[in-house]
């Protein structure tokens, strides 16, 4: 039972949280302009890196806030959590996988504009 550092409530047991999938996959500005392949990448394609990946979590049993986390898929270890719209302090680009679905290192601009 890991402790997860809720950006609002502090460290709590992971059972209080729910997983929300890969983070920083913004909803496309104009879905109608995407072709089926591009849309399918948004809906279905997620990276599966060995190492650091960005994830979305929600503190379901606590403050109900969604936030982002960097986690190491080899150890499950949470490297860092950060609020929506914030960037992680850990930004080693080499450890971020960039896939077809265009996961990218979040920037100051927040979730929507990170593509």
């Amino acid at each position, binding site marked *: 039972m890991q*402790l*997860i550092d809720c950006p609002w409530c502090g*460290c*709590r047991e992971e059972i*209080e949280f729910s997983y929300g999938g890969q983070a920083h996959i913004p909803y496309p500005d104009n879905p109608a302009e995407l072709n089926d392949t591009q849309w399918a990448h948004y809906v279905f394609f997620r990276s599966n890196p060995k190492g650091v990946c960005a994830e979305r979590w929600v503190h379901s*049993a*606590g*403050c*109900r806030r969604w936030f982002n986390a960097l986690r190491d898929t080899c150890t499950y*270890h949470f490297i860092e959590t950060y609020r929506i719209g914030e960037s992680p302090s850990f930004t080693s680009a080499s450890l971020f996988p960039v896939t077809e679905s265009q996961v990218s290192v979040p920037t100051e601009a927040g979730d929507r504009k990170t593509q």
Partner: protein
Amino acid sequence: MTVDVSTKELLVARDGLDVHKEKFAALNAQVGVEVLPLAHQYNLRVSPNSDSAVAVEALLGSALPTSPSWVSSPAGQTIIWLGPDEWLIIDTPHHTDFEASLRDATKGHGAVVDQSGQRISLLITGDAPGLLAKGTALNLHSTAFPRGAALQGFLARAVVIYLSRSENSSRIELVVRTSFARYVADWLLDAALDPLAYPTPYGERTCH
């Protein structure tokens, strides 16, 4: 029971915990459990530091807490931090038109929702941390959970709000969703059968 529908007598408010109240009264060990009276309560959503928040604070006569904690307003209301822009206000004693005043104060830039029927409070006294340590990984010892702290989390498998009502953790209020209230009450009765023979020291392990 039957009700004469021809009369316009007041409806009786019920919490559905009468049987549990009797059992709680029969507890004579190190802990006491009391079902607090049904209370009007409101969910407040407003951006912190906004004009609306300032107006709400003026109405309450108290600042809105900004961390997992509760404060008491001069009028005796309990204002509980639930999230960065969310509070629960337990309006005890009940103030007529409080909801409307609160809504006016938010000036349309927030939300006020009557949740009076949503939750009910149980007050645990005595070795409250020892009893609750059987059902929560939260550290409720007084040093980690001083008076004024308010934590949301699990008690067994129900989500509750823990309010520290005293300096020494001997009064902890559980604010419980009403549909879970009987489960929580049953759990408390069962857990109280096996008091912990050990003090529950504090010390807080955090992530990593």
